């Protein structure tokens, strides 16, 4: 995955090319500008200034567009509080899973997220930070899209708007300065195997969404491209499709189980070898032991992706959590490892209106050193950390909504 550009959707109201001066010194280097004649001067001057320019709906070659959600804690209508999922946890909208799916389906492409604020929304600087980080942490790029109020205030040169812009630009610049990160390999506990299209599209994609909401780290495995390497280091594979796997894929996944992995599958998977396990712990699944591993077949089939997501996490076990948070509020994370295997990066996202005061995070793995970075302060921040058995525990000072932890392996 690559991220060669930092894109921005040019506000239609900015007809004066002098507004391009705002971009000087920022990482924004690709403008998506409307095709109206009133913006032709902007298009010309942008191109003359060395900026890449494209039209809405016509991304450059090598870019996949993900139609995303405005990331954050979902608020209820009529000024109510934060919405909650069935377990009572805050309901977080994130585009991370969709970015990773696009990357899995188009590994050579960059992924841009098109998620504009609602027309009448007032967006805080912190919310813009989340919008930038929620895409960039997962290797994508949010198409910077300003709310109408901010665009108008910036055009008027208002100082509070400029402060918000500065913070947004700093966040975009932070990720642009870490161009190598999108190429880092994601760490995962479970693999989700699907074609992700057709009759399997809803269930498989909703499963990815809900697994991410529950904090599970997934490797997305399109059915057509699975090799022996695809399943390496995973604890489990979830086969999410209604149709049975092709014989070669079936053989490969069962070999993974025999070596100690777990397969979670619908009954359409077909006959499962191995011996029945009498009390498998969850009556919704028929369990069988196979080699060193287990197969869990959902008795009711692909009935509810929410249940599948949350039950799979317990069946796999929190023992293998890559990341655990304390005092984080609504949080998300994405962990990657450098191609040379010498460094890992854990992206931590806190979706509330501000970052936590005293969060603790536990990252699975053995590490020699930990450094924290925030988009506001690209210099490393000192953090207290302590090794645990097979993990490190890090005590974060008061932080903004995004923190990157660099961990030396």
């Amino acid at each position, binding site marked *: 995955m690559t991220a060669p550009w930092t894109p921005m959707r040019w506000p239609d109201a900015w007809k004066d090319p002098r507004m391009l001066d705002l971009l000087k010194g920022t990482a924004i280097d690709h403008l998506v500008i409307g095709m109206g004649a009133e913006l032709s001067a902007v298009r010309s001057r942008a191109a003359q200034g060395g900026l890449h320019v494209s039209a809405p709906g016509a991304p450059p070659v090598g870019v996949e567009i993900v139609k995303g959600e405005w990331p954050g804690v979902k608020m209820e209508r009529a000024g109510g509080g934060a919405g909650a999922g*069935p377990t009572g946890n805050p309901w977080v909208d994130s585009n991370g899973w969709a970015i990773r799916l696009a990357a899995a389906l188009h590994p050579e492409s960059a992924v841009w997220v098109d998620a504009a604020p609602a027309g009448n929304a007032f967006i805080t600087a912190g919310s813009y930070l989340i919008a930038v980080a929620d895409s960039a942490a997962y290797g994508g790029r949010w198409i910077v899209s300003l709310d109408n109020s901010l665009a108008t205030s910036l055009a008027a040169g208002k100082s509070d708007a400029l402060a918000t812009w500065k913070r947004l630009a700093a966040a975009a610049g932070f990720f642009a300065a870490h161009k190598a990160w999108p190429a880092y390999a994601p760490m995962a506990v479970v693999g989700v195997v699907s074609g992700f299209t057709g009759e399997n599209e809803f269930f498989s994609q909703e499963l990815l969404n809900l697994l991410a909401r529950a904090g599970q780290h997934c490797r997305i495995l399109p059915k057509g491209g699975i090799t022996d390497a695809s399943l390496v280091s995973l604890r489990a594979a979830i086969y999410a499709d209604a149709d049975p796997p092709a014989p070669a894929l079936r053989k490969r996944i069962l070999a993974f189980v025999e070596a100690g992995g777990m397969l979670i599958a619908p009954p359409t998977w077909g006959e499962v070898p191995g011996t029945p396990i009498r009390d498998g712990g969850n009556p919704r699944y028929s369990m069988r032991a196979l080699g060193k591993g287990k197969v869990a077949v959902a008795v009711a089939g692909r009935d509810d992706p929410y249940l599948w997501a949350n039950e799979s996490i317990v069946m796999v076990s*929190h023992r293998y959590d890559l990341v655990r948070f*304390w*005092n984080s509020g609504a949080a998300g994370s994405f962990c990657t490892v450098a191609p040379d295997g010498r460094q890992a990066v854990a992206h931590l996202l806190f979706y509330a209106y501000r970052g936590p005061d005293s969060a*603790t995070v536990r990252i699975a793995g053995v590490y020699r050193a930990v450094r924290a970075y925030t988009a506001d302060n690209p210099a490393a921040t000192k953090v207290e950390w302590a090794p*645990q058995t097979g993990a490190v525990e890090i005590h974060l000072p008061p932080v903004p909504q995004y923190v990157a932890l660099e961990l030396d392996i």
Partner: protein
Amino acid sequence: MWNAAAALAGASLARAAAPTAPVSVARCKTYDPAELVPTMRKMFDQLGGLGRLVKGKTVAIKINLTGSPTYRLGYLPLEDTHYTHPHVIAAAAHLMAEAGARRIRLLESPWATADPIEEYLLRANWEPRDILGAAPNVEFENTNYLGSGKKYSRLTVPFGGYVFPAFDLNHSYADCDVFVSLTKMKEHATAGITLAMKNCFGLTPCTIYGTGAGIDEPSETPHGGRTTVHAGDRQPSKSAPPEKDPRSPRQDTWRVPRTVVDLVAARPVHLAIVEGIKTMTGGEGPWIPVEQKLVAPGVMVAGLNPVSTDAVAMAVMGFDPMADRGTPPFERCDSTLKLAEEAGVGTRDLKRIEVAGASIAEVKFDFAAIRRQRRAAPPRPFGIRG
């Protein structure tokens, strides 16, 4: 006037009639098994020996894992502040097995989940195998829902109950010979203190008594907390016995102490263990919005009657177990101990309780003084950043 005098006389009679049992008190400064296990063994010996209580029996131990496992007081591990420490749980299980217990079942109704307790512990950063491995016959059950039972067990309150005449609980609270309440020594925002009796508030499954309980039948899985009991804003699922009087006060400071007494009367506690080696001040968990501190009283209290054990533990905390509503730690709530005493569960009168081991004065850790200081200070801003 006559009524008040009669009530007073009645209360005195109830106090005199309430059963008593010895309570053991010990200094224990660390969670190091080398100190913890012999300390607890000696305490149980002072109570007449564990074998007499558990040999050949199924023992159910209600532990205290209140609140979400992802919520800490600052950076502190949960076991140092508000969860029963895993070493204490493991030591208790080890000693029970050593004394001949046939089966040891560790029970809790964890926050808003039907997940196995082992998974809940992992989220708290504990290793459940350390507890399961403490003896050959240890197991967990999540009692916040039906669990592994085929149906809920109805446990009746022998004295008729203050709020509830009976409860429908997870089968584990009926399918045991010996019931143990193993808890942390803490203050409590609603009930003043949380010791062996208050720990039993968590017996109630949220599928019946919780925010998301089913209306007619229990829900399949628990959602949210126990507002049904706290606020009385609704009745339990219709399949369970309703409150005796739906017009009774709806204040949690009235309802929670009474419901706790109903529970300990319905599910008698054979052994109460209060762990105060390390704990927190200011409430039962880090979500209570007052100044809270990690403290290390270095003390354990155990007894065969939960009211007497809690009375001694209260005294160790610097509180008067005879305190009534309006007096610390019951400034704004009723005293669970007084209500339990009046219901004939046990005495809170220190003059009637035999204390073995260390004296109360020797191990006293003055929560009461910290409480006075805290309550005299202006309220703190919320969060570090105010």
